[in-house]
């Protein structure tokens, strides 16, 4: 029987120092803080994290991981308003790769789709173009951007089954379904674990082929 349901500590097994970790979410929505906290507790360090925002509340999630000194580099579109990140950045203790949000999403999508690089108009004529190949297609300049792939993706979904099929809620999809495709090991925190077939085939957003482990988010904390 295929069963991708894991306990929280077991789900973190095998995440090594030096790993690249994608973390879903847009602001607090769809952010897998339950898993990020478990990663903090698991102890892996020297991490490169790929995440849209650097978080605000230092008690939990990405800011806590940052404060614990586990992150060597962050690849991010909007690290503003994060006191934990600001402290590290100003002290020169973290490397930042700033990426336009759509380029970030497309680099992750490409990583999942086996496309090593692509060209985009985003960033042409700006500081983002520094050091990048520029090619002209049909009279317009484009930058070459490289795909992103991770050792681990931590994501959040609304419902999941034991095959790893996932559905989402509201604007909680954001980076989650994209990151699910682009990591060697994809781990999802889900609000409701349901039987096979309970997520109608038409409603599956992330097919289980992309998902390795699902963890039940504590029911009492789920709305």
């Amino acid at each position, binding site marked *: 029987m295929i069963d991708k349901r894991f306990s929280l500590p077991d789900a973190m097994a095998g995440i090594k120092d030096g790993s690249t970790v994608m973390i879903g979410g847009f602001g607090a*929505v769809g952010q897998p803080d339950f898993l990020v906290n478990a990663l903090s507790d698991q102890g892996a360090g020297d991490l490169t994290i790929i995440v849209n925002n650097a978080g605000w509340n230092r008690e939990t999630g990405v800011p806590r991981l940052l404060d614990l000194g586990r992150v060597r580099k962050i690849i991010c579109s909007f*690290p503003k308003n994060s006191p934990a990140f600001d402290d590290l950045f100003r002290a020169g203790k973290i490397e930042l790769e*700033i990426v*336009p949000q759509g380029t970030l999403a*497309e680099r992750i999508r490409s990583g999942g789709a086996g496309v090593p690089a692509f060209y985009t108009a*985003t960033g042409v004529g*700006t500081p983002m173009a520094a050091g990048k190949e520029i090619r002209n297609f049909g009279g317009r300049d484009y930058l070459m951007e490289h795909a992103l792939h991770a050792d681990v993706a931590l994501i959040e979904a609304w419902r999941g089954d034991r095959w790893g099929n996932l559905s989402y809620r509201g*604007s909680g999809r954001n980076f989650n379904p994209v990151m699910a495709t682009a990591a060697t090991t994809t781990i999802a925190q889900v609000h409701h674990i349901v039987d096979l077939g309970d997520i109608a085939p038409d409603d599956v957003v992330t097919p289980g082929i992309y998902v390795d482990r699902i963890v039940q988010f504590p029911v009492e904390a789920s709305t």
Partner: protein
Amino acid sequence: MTDPCTPLTRGQIAERCAQDIPEGWFVNLGVGVPTQVADYVPEGREIIFHSENGILGMGPAPAEDAVDPWLVNAGKKAVTLVQGAALFHHADSFTMIRGGHIDLCVLGAFEVAANGDLANWTTSSNDRTPAVGGAMDLAAGAKRIWVLMEHVTRDGAPKLVEKCSYPLTAPGVVTRIYTNYAVIDVTPRGFEVIELIPGMTLDALQAITAAPLVMAA
């Protein structure tokens, strides 16, 4: 110089901009004052608002007791969905933006140059954390970029300039600017004034603009 007339409030600039958006357009509104444009869409005109985090058919902010924590806009503020709305992930959302499917994006700006260059993501003048978000994708990818901003900075410095002094968000993309004094098109002739608020003159506007203005024919 003294103010020759009463400048528009930010809400009034947003209201003026909203009048020019035709029915049926897919529109992305930048964080801040541009977000207010949605509040002034004329009654009965269907415009579909896009949010970069995966919403088409975004509605107004909910009542305090009706907040859905799973629905936020690009500024991370609570929003609602209208009938007919759709939800999708980030790669799809930026396919809409970067693939030229969004008819209009309304953004704020630090500076706009006479050739349409846009600077709105960093002033590099302090040690604040750099952050770009979706601004460059929208600026390079939407069919049209309109800017909504005050005509001068808080210190009175012109924001319409010959050449941007701040790092660009995208070159040559802005086609129209709504300020508290005027509506201005960016054309091959440079800044072309298509409307002045009552009491404003071309000479007075030129005095607070750091690039030549011409009156539209």
